[in-house]
């Protein structure tokens, strides 16, 4: 793997104290009643999750990743910048990745300001990813999904103008008018923090990332689809005169490391099951509000949803997605292989999976940091393979 290999620790901060009847709810998103949220337990979870993010920094992860979702037990980070602000003073080295607020759901000047604040506060450790937002976010926010993509593009345009041109400037757009675009403060990093687009890979967003020279973080896409996306982005970036670097293609890996494969599976699978079966559970209508997808995409995804129907199956998940559950050696091997295949050296480790208890997260991160990271950083796997041949 070329360049410096990089490991991020991504947290979703789920609210895990679900009522016993939670499976009767068709969705843990959008309309899942918020009476089930107990602030005292929420506070305990925040405290615990923040400690896990801080631990990742201490253990030598290169970055911690937070993200934004609304109206859901899946994530308690409705405002990820607040979480980022809370962990900045508690961390030293890790980059702080806010992956991120949908720029079309927030006033773009305010987002430019908040990210600049975080970048200054962290002395240039911020990285930003722009999501369009899941379909579910549009049921929770007052923005039309039908104009979301146009607004998304315009918002990013405004944010980049605010970061790259000396203010005050003006902006007269379709959605926003700025007579004095002049946000204080400005980003610590020049010209601005590393940026990505994050999503499930609709052609429009991949193309936009290529045009802007941004990275692309694909989430919850299957292995072949992820490869396809990386290739598309390389092509698109090249067409726009950008040389895409491997670290711009973070690869999301569901990871759990333990003493033996059996133990790893025994300890992790129930939480992976919770993640797919419960935390991600929602309805096709919430997933695809009108105008959010093209008709073609809708039909493709509807056909796929019918195929995947039939409940949780670890083998199938393991096969379809990037899942590394096993011993340190197995995890090293898989990550190395996927890194080569996908042309990346940037791994976004989902190490706090679903309703995993604190001890498992600590164990997982510690095993990963002590037994996986060093080998991959040294390229130990490559040496081993060479020796075997």
């Amino acid at each position, binding site marked *: 793997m070329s360049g410096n290999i990089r490991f991020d620790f991504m947290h979703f901060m789920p609210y895990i104290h679900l009522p016993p009847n939670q499976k009767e709810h068709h969705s843990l998103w959008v309309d899942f009643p918020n009476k089930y949220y107990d602030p005292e337990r929420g506070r305990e979870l925040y405290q615990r999750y923040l400690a896990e993010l801080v631990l990742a920094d201490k253990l030598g992860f290169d970055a911690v990743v937070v993200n934004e979702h609304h109206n859901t037990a899946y994530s308690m980070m409705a405002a990820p910048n607040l979480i980022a602000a809370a962990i900045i003073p508690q961390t030293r080295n890790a980059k702080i990745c806010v992956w991120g607020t949908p720029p079309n759901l927030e006033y773009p000047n305010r987002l430019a300001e908040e990210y600049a604040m975080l970048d200054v506060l962290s002395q240039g450790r911020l990285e930003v990813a722009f999501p369009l937002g899941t379909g579910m976010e549009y*049921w929770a926010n*007052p*923005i*039309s*999904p*039908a*104009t979301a993509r146009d607004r998304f593009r315009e918002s990013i345009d405004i944010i980049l103008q605010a970061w790259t041109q000396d203010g005050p400037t003006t902006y007269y757009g379709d959605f926003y008018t700025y007579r004095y675009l002049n946000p204080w403060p400005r980003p610590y990093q020049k010209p601005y923090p590393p940026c990505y687009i994050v999503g499930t890979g609709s052609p429009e967003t991949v193309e936009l990332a290529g045009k802007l020279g941004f990275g692309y973080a694909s989430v919850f896409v299957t292995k072949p689809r992820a490869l396809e996306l990386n290739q598309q982005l390389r092509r698109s970036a090249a067409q726009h005169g950008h040389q895409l670097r491997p670290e711009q293609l973070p690869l999301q890996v569901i990871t759990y490391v333990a003493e033996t494969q059996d133990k790893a599976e025994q300890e992790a699978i129930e939480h992976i099951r919770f993640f797919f079966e419960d935390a991600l559970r929602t*309805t*096709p*209508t919430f997933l*695809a*509000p*009108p*105008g959010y*997808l093209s*008709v*073609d995409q*809708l*039909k493709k995804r*509807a*056909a796929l949803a*019918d195929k995947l129907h039939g409940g949780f199956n670890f083998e199938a998940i393991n096969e379809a997605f990037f899942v590394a559950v096993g011993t340190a050696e197995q995890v090293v091997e898989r990550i190395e292989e996927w890194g080569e295949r996908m042309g990346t050296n940037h791994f976004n480790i989902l190490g706090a999976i679903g309703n995993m208890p604190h001890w498992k997260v600590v164990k997982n991160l510690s095993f990963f940091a002590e037994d996986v990271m060093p080998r991959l950083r040294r390229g130990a796997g490559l040496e081993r393979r060479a020796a075997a041949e």
Partner: protein
Amino acid sequence: MAAVEPFAHFERETHTVNGVKTVVLTAGRGQPLVFFHGAGIWHGLKFALPWTERFRVIVPMHPGIGESGDDPAMTDIHDYVMHYLDLFDALRLDKFHLVGFSLGGWLAANFAVEHGHRVERLVLVGSAGLRGKERPKGDFFSLPPEQIPSLLVSNFDVIKPYLPDNPKDLDFMGERYREGATLARLLWEHPYDTKLPRYLHRLTMPTMLVWGEEDRLLPVQNAELWRRHIPKAQLQTFKGAGHLVLDEKREAVDAVQRFLS
């Protein structure tokens, strides 16, 4: 596929209006009667056949719905009013009766507010557009698509022939999703027009309101709201009819015909 031809007896013309393919269905002879359909026209025009005996019934398909093309730049009702000014020029239509159903009622009310001299008589059927206290239980957008058809009617048999056998038919779902996007562009952020009541006094032409008493999408109480702003309008409601009152009740179709004759 649907078991029946939804537009039997109508002739189809295609116009290009400001670059947008616009399909116009026409049947009958006599005074022109323009019908603005709702957010979908898959349930056909069989109900309108009695009108064709006395009127030239003209049904343009709205951009983004049915067989007409898409124009994502059309993001409010006024864009549709302007679209129809251009189309009516092309059709050399000057004065006509205007009947609007649901979304088409909202559009018809706007057209008539702005261009009242061109509208002989106005009929609003289960019309959207006003902000009522009576909100439907589930909003149209958040319903699973396979549940929408049955919500539209009191008697499901009326629309059954126009629906695919498989309620999750991908092509049918795709077409409805496309129409949903059209609707979302128009009214996701504002599912009503807060300004419209200011201008409804301009509806000085004879005006009729028609509603199904079992309308579950826009409950019949909405009719009173319209009448408050158009006091001279006559209101007729029909028992045993849902939102698609014209499709369900021949009496409603006849009442409109009497009003226009």
